[in-house]
């Protein structure tokens, strides 16, 4: 029931916001998100970490039983952490919108849809039913579309429609794949039609390798767009750049994680043999994303666009770890999901603060802000370093684990198939990547350091540059904003900074939640790969 409450609370809050006058919107939204956060923290505190591999707080209500559809929720360790992240970003988004969304900007619409979005995202992570998962997955599009197209910057209409069409087109193909999985399960003797994720994850495997390959293609069509992986990433920079600050934070913080989470939850256990087979290909896409995304960042002059493209590169690392298919890699990948949400979310908040003051994000017009805005600059440097992967901050741990996982994933010494890997060097684990993947991806770290530090160097340090015609007492300046950060803005950033530091020095705080879940997923992958390759062998014969 706890998870139902976590989903329902924002919806009730949204309804309250919708019926109350606009002046009450923000306090109501704040109240709702804080209550959700408290609930989520309570859930995490009572979470049984030792049994983190199984869905906890499970609850189920029948809904359209004739379709085999249930409102069935539960959370394992990974889902719990992502729910917590979602709940954490809720109040931060509301607080950060205080001056950006005025009374003339239809605040009821803004806050109501922000809350609906939070409910839908929580629903994705909590869903134990495939169709419920898909419903929530798809429904996140509507609030985000509204937030971008009503509250975005100049090019918002195009960004919103591109965002919607890309992800919608991908996910309907994924739906076909998901339905096929349910069908393949139901076609087995003694099995009935069900959409229960756990059942499907354990029993739908054993399909022939070619079927799994097509399924992988269909599922990745939906989820890779969301992540986004390299060739289908083009909606992301536009959507990020045009979205309002809170929209960007949610987009980077949670929405992208829906894709990675779906891959972790559905793709790995259900089509393990195909993932193992095509992991090198997918990893190449990740690496192209890492390097290509990094190079594009380097030439950006729009700070927000730079951070947006950096997401492409970062998620490349995250997926590389996932496709390593070993404990280090997948754990790193899961850790990366959270860390990226914290540090990139914070960067978007910082850029939003600058934009509210200067109405520009152009690096050519901004520079040397350290002398004017020391507090902002401190946070900027801190979160940039977290994002770059400075040891001691959170980005380093996950990035390192992802690359280590890819390094140890041992195709370079084997045939690439799990059971036939022999004669492995010490430390190598089953998988189909290898050291070269890690080495090439490692250059991406250097590129990341270059563009992010270059950005910090030009915006924070150097000679003071402010946009032409900008006066502190002029009309351009937002009346409610001091020159440097206000206490509210510091309050928004501080929790994120603390978490970045905490997860940098003590990542185990998070890993102890996710470890059992990762172990279980990998066990399913292993079981599926063995049967999967056997089935493929039978087909070949």
């Amino acid at each position, binding site marked *: 029931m706890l998870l139902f409450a976590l989903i329902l609370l924002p919806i009730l809050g949204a309804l309250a916001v919708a019926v109350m006058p606009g002046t009450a919107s923000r306090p109501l939204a704040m109240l709702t998100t804080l209550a959700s956060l408290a609930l989520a923290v309570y859930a995490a505190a009572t979470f049984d970490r030792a049994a983190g591999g199984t869905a906890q707080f499970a609850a189920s209500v029948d809904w359209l039983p004739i379709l085999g559809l249930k409102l069935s929720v539960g959370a394992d360790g990974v889902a719990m952490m992502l729910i917590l992240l979602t709940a954490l970003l809720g109040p931060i988004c509301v607080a950060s919108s205080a001056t950006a969304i005025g009374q003339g900007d239809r605040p009821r619409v803004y806050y109501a849809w922000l809350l609906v979005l939070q409910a839908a995202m929580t629903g994705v992570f909590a869903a134990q039913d495939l169709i419920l998962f898909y419903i929530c997955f798809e429904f996140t599009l509507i609030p985000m579309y509204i937030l971008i197209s009503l509250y975005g910057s100049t090019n918002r209409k195009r960004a919103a429609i591109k965002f919607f069409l890309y992800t919608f087109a991908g996910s309907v*193909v994924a739906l076909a794949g998901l339905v096929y999985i349910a069908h393949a399960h139901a076609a087995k003797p003694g099995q009935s039609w069900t959409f229960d994720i756990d059942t499907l994850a354990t029993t739908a495997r054993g399909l022939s390798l070619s079927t799994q390959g097509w399924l992988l293609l269909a599922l990745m069509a939906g989820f890779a767009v969301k992540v986004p992986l390299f060739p289908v990433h083009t909606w992301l920079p536009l959507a990020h750049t045009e979205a309002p600050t809170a929209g960007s934070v949610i987009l980077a913080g949670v929405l992208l994680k829906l894709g990675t989470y779906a891959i972790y939850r559905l793709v790995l256990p259900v089509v393990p043999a195909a993932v193992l087979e095509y992991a090198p290909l997918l990893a190449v896409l990740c690496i192209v994303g890492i390097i290509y995304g990094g190079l594009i960042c380097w030439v950006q002059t729009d700070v927000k666009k730079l951070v947006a493209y950096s997401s492409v590169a970062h998620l490349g690392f995250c997926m590389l770890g996932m496709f390593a298919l070993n404990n280090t890699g997948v754990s790193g990948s899961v850790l990366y999901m959270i860390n990226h949400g914290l540090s990139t979310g914070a960067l978007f908040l910082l850029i939003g603060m600058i934009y509210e003051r200067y109405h520009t994000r152009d690096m050519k017009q901004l520079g040397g802000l350290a002398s004017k805005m020391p507090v902002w600059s401190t946070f900027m440097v801190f979160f940039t370093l977290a994002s770059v992967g400075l040891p001691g901050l959170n980005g380093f741990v996950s990035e390192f684990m992802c690359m280590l996982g890819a390094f140890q994933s041992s195709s370079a010494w084997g045939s690439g198939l799990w059971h036939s890997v022999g004669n492995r060097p010490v430390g190598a684990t089953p998988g189909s990547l290898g050291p070269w993947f890690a080495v090439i991806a490692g250059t991406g770290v250097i590129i990341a350091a270059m563009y992010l530090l270059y950005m910090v160097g030009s915006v924070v340090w150097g000679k003071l540059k402010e946009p032409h015609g900008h006066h502190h007492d002029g009309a351009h300046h937002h009346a409610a904003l001091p020159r440097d950060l206000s206490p509210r803005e510091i309050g928004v950033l501080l929790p994120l900074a603390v978490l970045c530091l905490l997860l940098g020095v003590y990542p185990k705080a998070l890993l102890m939640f996710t470890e059992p879940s990762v172990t279980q997923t990998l066990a399913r992958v292993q079981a599926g790969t063995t049967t999967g390759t056997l089935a493929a062998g039978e087909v070949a014969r």
Partner: protein
Amino acid sequence: MSERLAFLRPEILLFVATCLVMVVGLSKTYATRRLTSGIAGLALLGAFYLSIATTPSLTSAACPISGKVFSEPVSAASGQLLLPAMVPFMKATIAAVGLLLLLVQAGTVDRAEEAAIAAGKRTFDPLRTNRAEYYAFFLFSLTGLMLCASADSLIWLFLALELTSLPTYIMVAISTARNRGREAGVKYFFLGALGAAVFLYGFALIYGGTGQTNLNQIALAIRGNGLSTITLAGVMISLIGLGFKIAAVPMHFYTPDVYEGAAPQVSGFLAFVPKTAGFIAILLLCAMVGWNYAPPGADEPSALTGVITQSPWGTSLPEPVSLLLWVMAALTMTVGNVLALLQSSVKRVLAYSSIAHSGYMLVGVVAGPNTQASNELPSFASAFTRSGVSAVLFYLLCYGVMNLGAFAVLAAVERTPGADGEAREVDKFEDIRGLCRRDPVMGWCMVLCALSLLGLPPLLGFFGKLPLFTSGIAAGQVALVVILGLNSAIAAFYYLRLAFAPFLESPEEHVERTVPAPYATRRWAAVLSAASVVALAIFGSVLMREAARASTVQRIAPADVRTPASVRLEAGGSASTPPARHSSLLP
């Protein structure tokens, strides 16, 4: 005969109401004339009740036209239904959606005339008013639609289809005072006649190939003697001709012009009534030629009679028919959606989207009924997810409701009258911009219905589409399902425009304001549709179960098939050519 008439009680009730409406609508006093719509509404309610009330008799042995269809010797006197359980479901659906349609029709005709009479400028003149005719045609068309569902022979089917369509030609023409409406009516009539000619030709070929007009006898003849080329050609030509009714490629081209020319409430009528008739006919033809055979392995060729008791294609359609439907489905969805992208008129968008939705439903037809022989499951759960037929039946209901909602909004909002005082309908996207702020109820109805048409979860449209996905995949039509998915994505582009023009966009300065139409029932229809779009997504299980039950296909079990000779004999000693002479296409 009287037993058979008892089965047709909903139709008879509607027919009586039609006659009554025709008389009452010509009354000189306004208060009496007004009763027409009330009578029509009561008749539809009664028909709804009777449709549901006839359900038990259908499954009982006492019912002359179903029951133990094949367990006793086939006689010409008792026609049998191939999809017997479809009848009550479809009739109830038709009556329910018909009630919604009736609400939208208020004030379609005679608006200026009645105003003039009320103002005392003119006296009542039966020649100048259309009220009686309009409501009579409305009921006639629905009667025809119900008759389609109970059709058991080609002739009956043809007459029912024409009874459905002929009134609509006139309804289109008289629905607006503008010439465009008349042009649309004439165009619709001529092209409709072409479509009717095509499928009538197909029916004739089927008769030529099998010597039978009764659908069951044809099914038996095909089963006994194989599918001759002429029969096959007849079936395929009929399907193409029926494509006119459902607005499927290549017979779709009239749709946008007719929908645009007619008043929105009539376009809404066209999007449901002829389409449903066409789908019922297609389902019957497919059941006749393919589905109604026992699953493969259930029966063996009888050694005694030498009759081929199992069709070579098992329980699926013959390959050419299946291929034809496949191509029609893929083309219809794609053409409809792509052309809808280019439109600037809301009604034309909805017209093209109506083409696309026919394509979606054809996927269900291609998938066919559940072949897993698990119809007996108490929950029908597996049956519903696997059966394309129930998916089509359920989707017809979903589409009827959500599409009607969109048209009802267009009918419930008008542009401010021009200089001549004539009300002008909303048509361009500019007209509905910012509707949520001017008229929140209608605006939100439009948002909900458009998002549901898009198939966005968790609205009704998604749950309509999901069984199409599941049944298509269960039938192995993965490629078609992927095309269906991609088409939904194309459709997202224009449905988003339709959904968010009222909500997110602000009206431009120079565009005229809109006012609510002075007919509250149109608003009720829109609200009811939008409410169903949400409510049925939550409580739709009952309807889905009924759809699953409705798609039960009569199987021809081996023991039921007599020798071809006996079949012909019992068919009344028809002098027609024995179909055995024709070469079987599929040996």
